């Protein structure tokens, strides 16, 4: 792990990151196979599919077969990288991922895009608020929620060199730059973005930007706030959680996901087993379905803004 923080903001869309990373990955490894379920255009992958016709397969609108076929290909040494929207990449094909994938030890990377409020105008039918919960419950699966473009690209490349079931969830849109492109990471290890002595906020994905904003506001009123990027939701970095909660007055988790089964649950499990006694507040989607709307509107009604984090801290103290 070699972390260098971003010096300036030049966010690029995650689908562009996906495309660029796959160009590199495909060039390096003839065994990589990229699969999509009729979202090639929507995922910004048309050029990749044109450039590498032998290694890219549009499976059509048949997600179950896509997962099964990818699993079969991996048994012969292929390295599948699969994309579709997060709800179709997880809950729609859970049994295929579980049995054809994890249970028979196949080798799959699955990018589930536009979770939570980022599904925007695709609305409730295309929204996943439970993908992390589902994937956490799958034995052997590694569950990743990249913080920004640099980390997403790094994770795509890193997981392509590994064997197993890797779920990556991210918006297709741009995310605030957290890291300089020279950064490297370690799967299973969180990144402390800032130390602090009163409050610690464990955040993922879009919620890292909100956590950093909350830190600024809270520090103006004299609170010392630590912020941690917990991009590996499973296996969770238990040691780091244990270390970061020591002496804190409140622990906050922030995720663009249901309160049930995601990052907040993972942290709660560690804190309860540790008998930490520190109050925990989970800023997450409160057991409800998604709906249609602009992302910033949805973020507000799902309770996922900087104000929600600040309120959670104050309410706990």
């Amino acid at each position: 792990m070699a972390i260098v923080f971003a010096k300036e903001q030049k966010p690029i869309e995650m689908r562009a990151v996906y495309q660029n990373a796959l160009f590199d990955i495909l060039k390096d490894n003839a065994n990589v196979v990229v699969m999509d379920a009729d979202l090639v255009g929507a995922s910004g992958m048309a050029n990749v599919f044109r450039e590498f016709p032998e290694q890219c397969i549009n499976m059509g609108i048949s997600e179950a077969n896509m997962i099964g076929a990818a699993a079969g290909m991996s048994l012969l040494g292929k390295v599948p990288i699969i994309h579709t929207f997060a709800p179709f990449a997880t809950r729609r094909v859970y049994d295929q991922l579980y049995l054809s994938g994890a249970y028979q030890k196949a080798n799959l990377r699955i990018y589930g895009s536009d979770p939570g409020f980022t599904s925007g105008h695709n609305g409730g039918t295309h929204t996943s608020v439970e993908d992390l919960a589902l994937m956490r419950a799958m034995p052997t699966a590694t569950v990743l929620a990249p913080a920004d473009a640099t980390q997403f690209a790094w994770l795509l490349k890193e997981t392509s060199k590994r064997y197993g079931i890797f779920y990556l969830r991210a918006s297709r849109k741009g995310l605030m730059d957290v890291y300089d492109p020279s950064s490297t990471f370690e799967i299973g290890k969180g990144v402390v973005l800032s130390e602090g002595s009163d409050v610690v906020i464990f955040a993922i994905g879009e919620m890292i930007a909100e956590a950093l904003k909350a830190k600024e506001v809270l520090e103006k009123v004299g609170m010392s706030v630590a912020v941690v990027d917990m991009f590996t939701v499973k296996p969770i970095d238990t040691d780091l959680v244990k270390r970061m909660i020591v002496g804190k007055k409140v622990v906050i988790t922030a995720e663009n996901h249901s309160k049930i089964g995601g990052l907040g649950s993972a942290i709660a499990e560690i804190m309860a087993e540790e008998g930490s006694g520190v109050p925990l507040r989970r800023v997450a989607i409160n057991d409800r379905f998604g709906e249609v709307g602009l992302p910033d509107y949805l973020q507000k009604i799902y309770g996922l803004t900087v104000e929600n984090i600040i309120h959670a801290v104050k309410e706990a103290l």
Partner: protein
Amino acid sequence: MSENLSLFSAQIRLETCKMLAHRGFGHLGGALSIVETLSVLYGEKMNIDPKQPNWPGRDYFVLSKGHAGPSYYSTLALKGYFPLEVLNTLNENGTNLPSHPDRLKTIGVDATTGSLGQGISIAVGIAKALKLDNKSNKVYSIVGDGECNEGQVWEAFQFAAHQKLDNLLVFIDENHKQLDGLTVDINNPFDLRAKMEAFGFYALRVDGADEKAISEAIDDCFAHPGQALCIVLDTVKGQGVEFFEKLFDNHHIRFATESKAELDKAIVDLEDLVSKGGVR
């Protein structure tokens, strides 16, 4: 034919009955309906080396209707993948022979199956991977007619046809029954051969109890390159043992009194058949 296939079929059927008799219960009906097809594949057609189960040059087999595991295991044991005595461990605690095939547990099993609909997708993936690598290995998969209730099966068929996977031979074991009864009463499959043709397959229908007919149909299929291939097997659930063919609820049987006596009788008859070289 490179082996005496009727003898091999009788041996597979005998070992299947014996393992189920030992366990006292099991998926007899659908295991017996594919015996002759397994016999032709493993006795004649497949390019395999039981001493090197993971040999990359082998032909692959995916039992999509995973509940037919017992006859698959019998076939593998008879071919020498593992000792025949292992068959008695079927479904025992901690066994390497689970009710449904598991590639991580059983030597010779190429794919983990049993959640219906999923095996055929794994098979099309294997076939596509071989195509991408310009390899000539063949892939065989048996799908159940009841299994065709699953939508995923038809997704996989569309993919196979569109990708022109002529290295994959799909068998549909049309034994006319599923767990709860007749397929026509539960979710009518209509004309499966015509359906497969409509999906873009070169499709045949043969008597699934006739090794010679199955063997010739396989050759016929592979004489049609550039197209996905299917053989619909006209079979009987419980095939080859008259009592179980006539028993209506023969998907999963817990052998007691009459059915136990009939299974024991079938074993004696099959031992006799085997001793006569498989010729009735």
